[in-house]
């Protein structure tokens, strides 16, 4: 990382010598070639430049002026060869990359700019000037960090999904919209009412929890009462997703938005990683919530009751568990956690009405990879998905990064059909 820092300083200090043409130097009726030679920000005077046609017919030779600028007007449009005479450059300087020939094209009524970037010659034995590039390992570190960042958000979202799935057996395709909704509510408090983001987020999580409660009370609970099957509910959730998503779009619009706080926060450099302070905070919060909820599910009475309800609601009722109440608690928490995930996603990326839908598949992948219905499975699976997505871009084009993660999902399930932390059912 030190190298990267040095690189920037170097860049700023103009250690690299440039030669640039002004954006609009020539007259409007310019037709030809032009450029400006600069070394360490200083114009280079008296460098010789020869222009020939593509086939080598000399056209004109010019010398750069006091501003470092040169200019060749031509009559014929087409391709030309421009050669910089390196011997006329100041001592100890060279063309970056070593190539001193350019082959630009001149178009009718336009001037094309030709650039020769100059830099001081590296003294013999000294390493070449630092270009500020990052090494493989620095990239890997950065990507791992990004992977954890993404993975934790997915995990949080997955936790909400997994809670609801675990308790009610509902594969909720509208979970993405719960995520979006949380973010949009926080946005409304934050941008609409001008509340600082942290209290706005807390409010939004509470409101979303309430909405989750209401959703079960008024909708899913009623369906359960009517004996609607889980598959039918899954399909209904697709309808809910379409409804919510488009309502959100109606009110929120189709564009990307950002919270008014922590928006486009400048990165800070920590070791090999460059990240915004908000990322670190978000990851801390996410991890804390995940662990607390996971433990609560394993250890508390309501947590166990939730798992009992998931196994067998009738038997749970027979044991004295108020099934509806447990499910409502889970819905409340599930929606609240989904909202938090949405807010975190909004903080780390930006808000859009499809933000939840866009990561839904990754959430499902995380939940499934970890083992359906297990809270810690969701965490593990999501982290694997997140890290894999980002780190795989070291080898595959970023546009295909999801392919890598999804392929891992399939491969892992081939060998562990019950997911990483899932358990096999017994037969017989």
């Amino acid at each position, binding site marked *: 990382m030190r190298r990267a820092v040095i690189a920037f300083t170097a*860049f700023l200090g103009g250690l690299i010598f440039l030669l640039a043409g002004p*954006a609009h130097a020539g007259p409007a009726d310019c037709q030809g070639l032009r450029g400006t030679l600069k070394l360490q920000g200083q114009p280079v005077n008296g460098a010789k430049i020869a222009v020939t046609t593509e086939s080598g017919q000399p056209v004109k030779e010019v010398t750069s002026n006091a501003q470092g600028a040169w200019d060749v007007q031509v009559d014929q449009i087409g391709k030309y060869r421009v050669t910089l005479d390196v011997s006329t450059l100041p001592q100890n300087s060279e063309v970056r990359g070593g190539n001193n020939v350019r082959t*630009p094209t001149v178009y009718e009524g*336009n001037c094309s700019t030709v*650039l020769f970037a100059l830099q001081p010659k590296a003294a013999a034995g000294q390493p070449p000037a630092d270009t500020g590039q990052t090494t493989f390992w620095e990239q890997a570190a950065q990507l791992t960090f990004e992977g954890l960042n993404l993975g934790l958000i997915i995990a949080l979202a997955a936790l909400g999904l997994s809670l609801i799935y675990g308790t009610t057996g509902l594969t909720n395709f509208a979970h993405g919209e719960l995520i979006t909704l949380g973010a949009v509510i926080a946005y409304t408090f934050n941008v609409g009412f001008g509340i600082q983001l942290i209290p706005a987020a807390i409010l939004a999580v509470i409101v979303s929890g309430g909405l989750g409660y209401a959703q079960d009370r008024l909708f899913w609970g009623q369906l359960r009462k009517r004996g609607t099957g889980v598959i039918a509910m899954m399909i209904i959730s697709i309808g809910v997703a379409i409804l919510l998503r488009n309502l959100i779009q109606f009110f929120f619009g189709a*564009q990307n938005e950002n919270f008014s706080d922590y928006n486009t926060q400048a990165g800070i450099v920590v070791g090999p990683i460059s990240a915004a302070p908000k990322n670190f905070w978000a990851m801390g919060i996410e991890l804390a919530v995940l662990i607390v909820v996971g433990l609560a599910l394993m250890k508390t009475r309501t947590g166990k009751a939730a798992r009992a309800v998931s196994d067998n609601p009738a038997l749970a009722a027979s044991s004295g568990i108020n099934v509806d109440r447990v499910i409502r608690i889970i819905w409340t928490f599930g929606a609240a956690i989904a909202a938090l995930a949405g807010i975190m996603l909004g903080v780390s*990326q930006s808000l859009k009405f499809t933000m939840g839908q866009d990561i839904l598949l990754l959430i499902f992948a995380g939940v499934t990879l970890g083992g359906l219905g297990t809270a810690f499975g969701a965490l593990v699976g999501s982290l694997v998905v997140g890290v894999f997505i980002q780190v795989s871009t070291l080898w595959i084009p*970023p*546009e295909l990064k*999801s392919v890598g993660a999804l392929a891992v999902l399939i491969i892992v399930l081939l060998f562990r059909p019950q997911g990483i932390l899932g358990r096999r059912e017994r037969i017989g």
Partner: protein
Amino acid sequence: GGDTATQTSPSAAPASSAPASKGDGTLTLGTLLPQTGSLAFLGPPEFAGVDLALKEINEAGGVLGKPVVKHDTDSGDTTTNIASQSVDKLLAQNADAIIGAASSSVSESVIDKITGAGAIHFSPANTSDAFTTIADKGLYFRTSPPDKLQGRVLGDLVVADGNDTVGIMAMQDSYGTGLADQVAKTVADGGGEVVARVDYDPKAADFSADIAKIKAENPKGIVLIGFEETAKVVQELVKQGLPASKHKWYMVDGNTSNTNYVDMPKGTLDGVKGTIPGAAAPEEFQKKLLGVNPDLEDFSYAPESYDAANLIALGAEAAKSDAGVDIAAKLMEVSKGGEKCNNFKQCVDLLKAGKDIDYDGVSGPVEFNEAGDPAVATIGIYQYGSDNKYATKALEYRTGNIAG
């Protein structure tokens, strides 16, 4: 579109004879413009342009003696199937010409359907090179210049600013990759080096890995080609330590927006340059647009949309028919060679007087070549200020031939 392409592909030949025109006396226009999706921010100016033109046309007495009818539909973006349904609806409403779509990809997905039905497909904003050679039965037109020109101007701008190392972040579609190719070529010719090029998926959940790839090469100039998702890219650039204050950023028509970045911290985009096809729209024209839609913030492609509607109307007058095929046959004629005029009233009066006209629009001289592309066009270079908005007055306009 090139009729040549139709002929070289034998399999398409039997279908290439456009179905019989179904002129019914009323010129019916359909719009297929982004109300939703990743170009939604460009919907309002485009709709406004068409609306304004229509208002003027109908005030001037309509076409063929009847008021022009218009139906608005949404083009969505490529991730939805909206465009296809919209086209079905428009065709069911007997649209003679369809104005849209904005995105080249969306247009590509419906062009066969529209031209197959014998209607004109007229885009005010498609800049992808693909349309120059597409098989379109001679029914595809556009008022926006193919990206050859924009790519050239942008590439030259990047080089002229002294960026010897350049990174390109391009949205992965026909527009994005085509434009990126053109920029990359120009930059390389001019002496710069494209050290990193990432074609990204605009639907990606985040762009950290893509930016990491750019960062790895630490380029001096960074060209951002995309639509609305560029806002996310910008955030990621800032986060990973490649802000506009240290690197030079360049944008294009798909993301040079006055609405998408305003909520970012002051100065985030300070000094960023962007190119948008189209000449300076006269103040007066912008005022008229605001009369149609007072909420407009961007004006991109409003002139092109306005010109598209006018040209179709003039074509119909010239052909004395409202059938798509007939209009298409006259469009080239009304766009060049003849007595110059620059609004519908003026032109239609000349036509009625039996004169050959040359419509010069707000977006430029609009002279169609054989492919239905404008032959000459202007690209404006804009610059952002510290308020993250660009001045609607360009730094500079460059006019050039598309060909060459």
